[in-house]
């Protein structure tokens, strides 16, 4: 069973700037959970597209009720791969991001397409899709709910991070109020998600003893 999520996003900067920012988005005030970033493969294809593979390590932030299902030796950091194709002819960028650790516990894959906004050519639209799944017997629904809620929070942080980096690149001073608001909203969403997932987990637990 896989949970599917799709949303659109808009950045009020042109596609070129967004692509440049894409390679410079870390660190930013919303990315404290991203510990390391490395390009581990890169090539320009015969059709002049740039293909790259980026390896990220992030803090592994599983809630306590999920941690019981992690084997003791499992790394406290999560490893994530992001593949991307930048096509400067078509003015599109496609990215695919997925975790290569903790994947049995929860697997999240995200695919994004960055294109020139059809209504305003100095803006960039993002189509974002995610597939969230878990293979832990009896808890997959709770884990998927947690995963989806956390993914939505991540999207907010990603967009805020992008806006911050783009503002800096364009010589503007990014607004601190924006940063504080985003953090507060992210915290609230995370708390609500935690409660919901905890409920589901305890329900699943009760079922086992019936």
């Amino acid at each position, binding site marked *: 069973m*896989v949970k*599917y999520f799709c949303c659109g996003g808009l950045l009020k900067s042109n596609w*070129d700037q967004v*692509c*440049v920012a894409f*390679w*410079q988005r*870390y*660190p930013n005030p919303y990315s404290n959970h*991203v*510990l*390391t*970033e*490395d*390009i*581990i*493969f*890169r090539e*320009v294809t015969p059709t*002049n597209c*740039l*293909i790259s*593979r980026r*390896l990220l*390590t992030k803090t592994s932030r599983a809630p306590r009720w999920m941690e019981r299902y992690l084997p003791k030796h499992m790394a406290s950091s999560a*490893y994530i*791969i992001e*593949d991307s*194709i*930048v096509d*400067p*002819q078509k003015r599109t960028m*496609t990215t*695919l991001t*997925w975790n*290569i*650790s903790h994947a049995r516990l929860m697997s999240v*894959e995200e*695919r994004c397409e960055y294109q020139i906004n059809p209504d305003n050519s100095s803006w960039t639209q993002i189509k974002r*899709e995610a*597939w969230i799944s878990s293979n832990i017997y009896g808890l997959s629904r709770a884990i998927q709910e947690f995963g989806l809620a956390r993914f939505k929070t991540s999207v907010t942080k990603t967009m805020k991070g992008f806006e911050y980096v783009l503002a800096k690149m364009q010589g503007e001073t990014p607004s601190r109020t924006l940063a504080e608001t985003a953090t507060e909203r992210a915290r609230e969403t995370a708390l609500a998600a935690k409660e919901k997932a905890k409920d589901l987990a305890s329900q699943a637990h009760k079922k086992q003893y019936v």
Partner: protein
Amino acid sequence: MNSVGEACTDLKREYDQCFNRWFAEKFLKGDRSGDPCTETFRKYQRCVQKAIKEKDIPIDGVEFMGPNKDKPES
């Protein structure tokens, strides 16, 4: 940002600087005159691939854009 290999961070930053300049000023503008960063990339890769092996990070075996083939949409 730091590299996953602590010893590679300086090489990474040197490469990133070169890449970011080439990407914005040449690649996106359709200038195909060649990549000035191949040497600094090679040095960086030598270091980071070694660190990845040492830390046992499971990067092998997945083809480029591999996981998204045949994805259901519901």
